[in-house]
């Protein structure tokens, strides 16, 4: 079996990766604190996974951040008394971030109808943080209705109204167009990063790509664009060499995030050439053309130019077929079908994905993970056995 060697990196790239790792891992949200120092009157708005039209928050002059739990980095001792034992960890640690005061900077928190744990979070948040606006942004769940785009534009307009009330100033179309431009750039850079992962996975490890991506969820996106641009240029100059390693797709990281150590463990055993980690940041697959109606353009992009996830039902986007397309485009040999513990949609979908992999004869490994899992030796054994079974088949 191939022994992993980290690609050599120059000092500047190492510094960027360290910075992103810190931003991804630090539950005290240092980038938010820095932004607040620079913008004493600025508002911070949090949202839950998976996709959120951050452009609208950005256009209001506010800082959008994704609230996505805190893994094992905090102890959910307060949240445990508010949430039952059979609820996913991301919900629990997200609440703990709030109860421990780490999200006191938020003026609002928006969750989404991805699952009913997420929808319940709006009520839990509202009861515990009455000073913050706590709402569900109702993205349409009948994506094929002829009226879905109109409805979604109306819902985005409602969001505009909520943010204008919080910020005390109107959100102009010109600001929306400018913000869409910033986010288009961000998504272009992330597409380049994933292209590099697919084409030259020896130049960027899975966990490096992950922290580079995740940093953007808690910092101003303009700064994230600079970081990505610089990192991409440096990654292209790396001198790593291709190794004889199994190419796999990782599926199941759309909401709760696997621990960084787990990603490190995977990349020691194989090339993770594509994944759905933080898929919300890459949900829109093409540039949004803002035009005369930027909210309408965002709504259209969500419905018509987007990737897939098990938390969206859209018959035009059959999930198994889209997973297979992801596998084919990445020239992957195998798939890791992961699901977060207690995640109803993820666990349901795992069955369907397993069947399509079996039908296509694609080697696959079923994994259940939790953001706060620590002892990974058993997992290491499973992954290594899986990879060896492919290599020596």
């Amino acid at each position, binding site marked *: 079996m191939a022994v992993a060697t980290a690609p050599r990196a120059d000092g500047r790239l190492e510094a960027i990766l360290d910075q992103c790792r810190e931003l991804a891992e630090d539950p005290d949200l240092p980038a938010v604190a820095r932004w607040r120092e620079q913008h004493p009157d600025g508002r911070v708005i949090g949202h839950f996974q998976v996709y959120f039209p951050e452009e609208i928050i950005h256009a209001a002059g506010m800082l959008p951040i994704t609230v996505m739990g805190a893994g094992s980095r905090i102890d959910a001792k307060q949240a445990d008394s508010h949430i039952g034992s059979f609820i996913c960890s991301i919900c629990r640690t997200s609440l703990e971030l709030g109860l421990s005061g780490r999200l006191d900077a938020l003026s609002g928190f928006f969750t989404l*109808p991805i699952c009913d744990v997420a929808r*319940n979070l709006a009520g839990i948040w509202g*009861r515990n943080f009455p000073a913050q606006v706590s709402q*569900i942004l109702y993205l349409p769940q009948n994506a094929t209705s002829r009226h879905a785009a109109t409805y979604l534009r109306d819902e985005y307009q409602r969001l505009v109204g909520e943010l204008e009330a919080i910020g005390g100033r109107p959100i102009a179309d010109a600001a929306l167009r400018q913000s869409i431009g910033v986010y288009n750039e961000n998504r272009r850079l992330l597409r380049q990063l994933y292209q590099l992962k697919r084409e030259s996975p020896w130049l960027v490890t899975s966990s490096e790509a992950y922290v580079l991506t995740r940093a953007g969820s808690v910092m101003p996106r303009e700064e994230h664009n600079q970081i990505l641009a610089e990192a991409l240029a440096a990654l292209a100059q790396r001198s790593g060499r291709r190794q004889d390693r199994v190419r796999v797709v990782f599926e199941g990281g759309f909401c709760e995030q696997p621990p960084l150590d787990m990603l490190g463990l995977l990349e020691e055993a194989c090339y993770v050439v594509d994944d759905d980690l933080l898929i919300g940041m890459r949900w829109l697959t093409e540039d949004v053309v803002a035009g005369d109606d930027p909210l309408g353009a965002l709504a259209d992009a969500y419905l018509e130019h987007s990737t897939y996830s098990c938390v969206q039902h859209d018959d035009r986007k059959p999930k198994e077929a889209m997973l297979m397309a992801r596998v084919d485009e990445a020239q992957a040999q195998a798939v890791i079908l992961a699901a977060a513990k207690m995640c109803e949609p993820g666990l349901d979908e795992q069955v369907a994905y397993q069947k399509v992999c079996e039908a296509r004869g694609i080697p696959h490994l079923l994994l259940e993970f939790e953001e706060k899992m620590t002892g990974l030796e058993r997992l290491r054994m499973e992954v290594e056995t899986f990879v060896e079974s492919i290599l020596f088949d």
Partner: protein
Amino acid sequence: MATDIRTRPPGDQEDQVVGRGRRQGSRLFRDWYGALGQADANGEPTAYVFVMGSCAEVLRAFDFHMVFPEINSLQTAVHRVSLDYLNAAEDSGYSPDVCGYVKADVGVHLRDRQHPNGVIPRPSLVIATNMCNTYVKWVEIWERMYHCPVFVLDIPGQRGIGWRANPGEAGFEADRRYVQAQLEELIELASRISGKPFDVDRLVQAMEHVNRMGAAWREVLRLNQNVPAPFNAMGDAITYMGVLSAYRGTELGAQYMEDLRAEMEERVARGLGTVEDERFRLHFVGTACYSHFRRFLELFQNWGAVFVNSEYLAYAGGGLDRGIQFDTSRPLESLAEQLLLTGQRSMSNMFFSQDQLADTVRDWHADGIVYHAVKSCRTVSTGMADSREYLVRTRDIPALSIESDLVDPRLWSEAQVKNRVDAFFEALGARKAAAAAGRR
């Protein structure tokens, strides 16, 4: 020990009315399952729907049979065979952490739709609302099994605590237009599948039946404000609610509910309760435990307790708990408006329930709340611990939390549940005694 009035000897004069709702309900259920067996044999159009947002009004207009997979699943538990079906689903790849309703249903389909109550017909159409997100995952399973048309009726819910949009206001109307457009699309689909043209008069007829049914059901629930309460909101009421779902939009259903109202009025007039000495009145949050249904109730009845109301009856009863008033002079618009209003209230009963719970405790003269969290249903269970903490802290409402499941007997721990129930009643009794002493 308290005595359930259902033990009244047969032939007693009062039995003509008392217990009629349960007897008629059981018969209607047998008839309904019998009709499903016929539908399978004859290949008649059948829609799989859910208790929240069944779209019965539309389906009646096209003569679809309606299959409720939630009811099928709970019936496997009532018949004490749910574990067989759960095991079949888990053997086919479903995790122990997946909803038990889903898995029991998958088990039914893996056994060629053979159910303890008869054969379940194949779906010609399946409809899910977003009122439970697992519905949407569930219909995808049938879509893969049967390649049948799937329709997701999206009902945007209340956005947050205190958020309110009323008919006529811009926010509400935006949602209403979306729901109405979807209903029009559903009608097109139902017409295509059934091969029948849309007849608005048949839709209106179904809506009028629902108006009657809703008005009677609302009154049935209100009659339980009486002391003693004439029925147990987690006992016989489950049968009543089943009829509410399965016969929604029919003359039989409307008549049943009006008869039930008359029965409850009579019980109130005679001062008949569900236990001999009604010592405690409780509000229930969560779902039933169908794998141990009778025993679960006994744990409370043995203390002279009755569930006077239940959130379960609100959301799982299709939102009719406060009645419904379709304006049949503008049928589609009114259907969209009322489905939105009742749907939003049903979802809010799960996600933003605290004020509604406190109001019910007050109006139904309840001594406390029982929260029953079930692993199968994160929709109703996720917010429970927090809601309980909030109401205890802000309203001083006594509350008990217990955990088990809807249909999975492996998650039932009698000793653990009984210990908690007993401790709760001891504390509640002491509290009532102290309050009574304070009043003297």
